[in-house]
């Protein structure tokens, strides 16, 4: 079974391609990228006036399975991923139980084999139970097939333990992802610390609680001579610290999420719990720094930090509501609206952040559109408007920060491993 994608604007920054080309998919690989490909047997997809890009590789997704299948499952999350143009997700390990041992990983792999509609990679934990007390068996985790380790949602407070983890991860050839937050500083905070937290009467989360930990994590990575990836960067000081570190040759990469370049703390003024996430929506200044960081390359990756929660956990008093928003189905549209339309990034730039850089960081072949690479491809109408509402989200949870927003950019086709997994 082969697919011929005809006449789209093909974007592949790695191979410096941005041209009207055809792509032939045979089996689960791309077999040809050229002008006017003829293939009698192939199913033809007309991509005239459309963008043809590699599938998104989302480095920060909470599948909630095993443990919280009421929020999301591998099946529903990967359905949402396909709809959002995401062909690979990195599953965060804060499941119940946490992904801290090979047995757990194997259990999840079974579920993935059965239910996943797109590629799911597993991230293991740094410490057992993500408690920051005792290291997981990192070598064993690697062997069981995880792609990275992270204590997602928690930071390892002990410098010694974190340094040890970075060294072990390096030995095992695993990427360490840091949720950089000093909980002694963020405390019981629920929104960004500032005038808005004051006027709303809510406890604040300072930039300091993030960037001080970012600085520490980078220093430890330098000491361990290991690579480190900083998750969900939200504030200007973090961007600056990472930029400096990159200049001195430390192997640090980082990601931000669409809400941090689209929304500010002003979205909280009505106590909308769908605007509550950690790190919190920051100030306008921080948002500008995030955009600048994306533009100048300090920020490598855009990831959704897809964090599904049930209505019961969101439709309650603000301070009691869970942190986090879903994002798989809106992340590309958010980038098109805030970055492409506003001139921060062009299409090759977007593809770098969403596809190519995550592939490089995780050591994947995908993220490119060249002969022989995996046939993970999306076809996008980048001018097509759509309105985000609970009815058109397929994720099990509807806690989107973009409910009611009209966004430009709709995914027409998602092809994963040579199969059409989503068609609009």
């Amino acid at each position, binding site marked *: 079974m082969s697919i011929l994608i005809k006449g789209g604007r093909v974007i592949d920054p790695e191979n410096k391609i941005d041209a009207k080309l055809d792509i032939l998919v045979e089996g689960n690989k791309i077999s040809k990228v050229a002008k006017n490909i003829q293939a009698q047997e192939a199913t033809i997809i007309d991509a005239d006036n459309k963008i043809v890009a590699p599938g998104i590789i989302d480095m920060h997704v909470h599948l909630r399975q095993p443990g919280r299948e009421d929020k999301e499952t591998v099946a529903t999350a990967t359905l949402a991923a396909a709809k959002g143009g995401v062909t690979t997700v990195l599953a965060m390990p804060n499941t119940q139980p946490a992904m801290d041992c090979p047995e757990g990983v194997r259990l999840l792999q079974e579920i993935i084999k059965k239910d996943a509609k797109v590629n799911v990679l597993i991230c293991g934990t740094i410490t057992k139970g993500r408690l920051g007390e005792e290291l997981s068996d990192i070598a064993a985790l690697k062997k069981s097939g995880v792609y990275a380790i992270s204590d997602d949602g928690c930071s390892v407070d002990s410098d010694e333990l974190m340094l040890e983890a970075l060294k072990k991860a390096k030995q095992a050839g695993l990427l360490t992802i840091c949720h950089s937050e000093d909980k002694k500083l963020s405390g019981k905070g629920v929104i960004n610390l500032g005038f808005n937290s*004051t006027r709303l009467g809510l406890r604040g989360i300072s930039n300091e609680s993030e960037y001080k930990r970012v600085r520490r994590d980078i220093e430890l990575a330098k000491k361990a001579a290991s690579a480190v990836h900083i998750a969900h960067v939200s504030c200007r000081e973090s961007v600056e610290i990472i930029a400096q570190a990159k200049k001195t040759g430390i192997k640090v990469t980082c990601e931000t999420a669409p809400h941090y370049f689209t929304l500010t703390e002003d979205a909280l003024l009505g106590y909308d719990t769908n605007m509550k996430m950690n790190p919190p929506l920051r100030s306008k200044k921080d948002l500008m720094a995030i955009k600048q960081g994306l533009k100048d390359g300090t920020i490598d990756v855009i990831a959704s930090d897809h964090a599904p929660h049930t209505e019961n956990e969101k439709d*309650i008093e603000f301070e009691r509501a869970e942190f986090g928003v879903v994002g798989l189905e809106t992340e590309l549209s958010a980038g098109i609206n805030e970055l492409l339309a506003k001139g921060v990034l062009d299409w090759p730039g977007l593809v770098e952040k969403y596809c190519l850089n995550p592939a490089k960081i995780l050591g994947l072949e995908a993220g490119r559109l060249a002969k022989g690479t995996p046939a993970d491809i999306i076809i996008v109408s980048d001018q097509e408007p759509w309105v985000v509402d609970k009815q058109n989200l397929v994720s099990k949870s509807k806690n989107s920060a973009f409910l009611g927003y009209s966004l430009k950019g709709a995914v027409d086709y998602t092809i994963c491993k040579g199969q059409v997994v989503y068609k609009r």
Partner: protein
Amino acid sequence: MAWTKKDLLGLEYLSPEEIELILDTAESFKEVSTREIKKVPALRGKTAVNLFYEPSTRTRVSFEVAAKRLSADVINIATETSSVRKGETLIDTGKNIQALKADIIIMRHNYSGAANMLARALDISVVNAGDGWHEHPTQALLDIFTLKEKLGKIKGLNVAIVGDIAHSRVARSNIWGLTKLGANVTLCAPEMLLPVGIELTGAKTSSNIDEVLKKADAVNVLRMQFERDEGTAFPEQLDYFKKFGITEERLAKAKKDVVVMHPGPINRGIEMSSEVADGKNSVILEQVTNGIAVRMAVLFLVSQAREAKNEHID
């Protein structure tokens, strides 16, 4: 100018005209409480529910008296937050009360924003009787009403608010109300009790009570709550009284007719001395009396707005 809001959630989003309308209406209602028969039939047949998630005798009683003087039926529900955690959600509770065909929910809640959330979820009126550290609009309205009664105006007055600004909903509502009506507000507290960015409200800040008192036409003294443990180091009680307590010696250096207010209940000898609380500058009991008129005005206006809206839909 007509009142169009079905709820009263805070003063931050009210216009100066809306605040004036409440104050003017309250002035008319004040007369009712001076009568032999302290009752008018304006809300006859209406039901107001006092939904209190935090213990508060004085605010609840004040609302109850206000509602009864308007001939509304009043039902009191006092709930410990701990049991609510296990049980139904706030929105479910609200929808149940709405299903009982109540007309107004008067809510006190320990979480900021709870009233906003409930108001969004319900068609009936919600009056915020204090939510977390956020707002306590009727307290501020009665403070402002009392000030206006005493000094004839609000515009241009120098008003000092003294105490734990960071954790005070009374302070926040007063800041919004007073600045909107043109008063100069100075917040006086130890540095650590002044929240981030508070000066963006238009209020000034100071940590020198004697300097602030010199210029003040009125001083609103907040209740210090030392029992609250939020991880913030609170000052020692005695130390606080020495540095910020309102005493006769301090008042002697202030303007002769400075108006001294307190939302109650007073911690005598902590934020204010007994002599000051009972002294000639104190209007603390007048505040309580005016609280009834202000709350009558609020209950009347929100139910009028809701009736008008419902009629429109039909």
